[in-house]
């Protein structure tokens, strides 16, 4: 394991988690970081969606998230990083993903969280489907997800 990954807390959550408690714990663990950025993704309340399910593949999903955390830590100077991603069936309002990045300089924290989210969205081993009155339907990645991801290919790290 690369040195940078030792300071990252990466979790695949099979049960609901409490994002406010996680953020409080992360803040408490980094009381002297200049800036802390958090991103919380939740199941949206949109017309007719009754449930969302994320499936993972155990041999690859968590290892892939850990690899992502290593890449994030190698790219930005962080004082701490946490990535928590749900798998399983969720209802509107349930948390799906939480990324917390602590850094001395705020731009590093913003970019790290933004980068991590783009990669979790379209380059991590999750498969998503939603349930409406018409039944379950698999969600394919959107074109926007790939353009979001492509932003990082040729840009400097800040």
């Amino acid at each position: 394991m690369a040195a940078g990954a030792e300071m990252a807390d990466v979790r695949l959550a099979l049960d609901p988690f409490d994002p406010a408690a996680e953020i409080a714990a992360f803040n408490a663990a980094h009381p002297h970081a200049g800036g802390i950025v958090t991103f919380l993704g939740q199941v949206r309340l949109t017309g007719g969606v009754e449930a969302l399910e994320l499936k993972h593949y155990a041999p690859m999903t968590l290892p892939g998230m850990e690899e992502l955390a290593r890449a994030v830590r190698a790219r930005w100077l962080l004082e701490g990083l946490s990535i928590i991603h749900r798998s399983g069936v969720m209802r509107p309002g349930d948390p799906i993903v939480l990324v917390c990045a602590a850094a001395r300089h705020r731009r590093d924290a913003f970019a790290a969280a933004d980068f991590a989210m783009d990669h979790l969205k379209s380059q991590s081993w999750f498969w998503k489907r939603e349930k409406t009155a018409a039944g379950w339907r698999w969600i394919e990645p959107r074109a926007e997800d790939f353009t979001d991801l492509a932003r990082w290919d040729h840009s400097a790290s800040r």
Partner: protein
Amino acid sequence: MARLVFLGRLEDVAGMPQTEVPPGPVEQVLAALAPELAVALLDEKVRMALNGRLIGDRGAVVLGKGDELAFLPPVSGG
């Protein structure tokens, strides 16, 4: 036996999350499946992982006893 794992929408196509198959070259293994499933598995957007590692050259795969071959359609997380 070896194991095939169907992720995402491929589970719906297969009607099951996984299945046991006799070991052998992957084309032989796929030929023994329902044609509709074999076609879905060979979609160019579907990637394959052998024992948790992505495979570059699909054609060269030979499943051994206890191997797990996963079929991975486009992902969508977060």
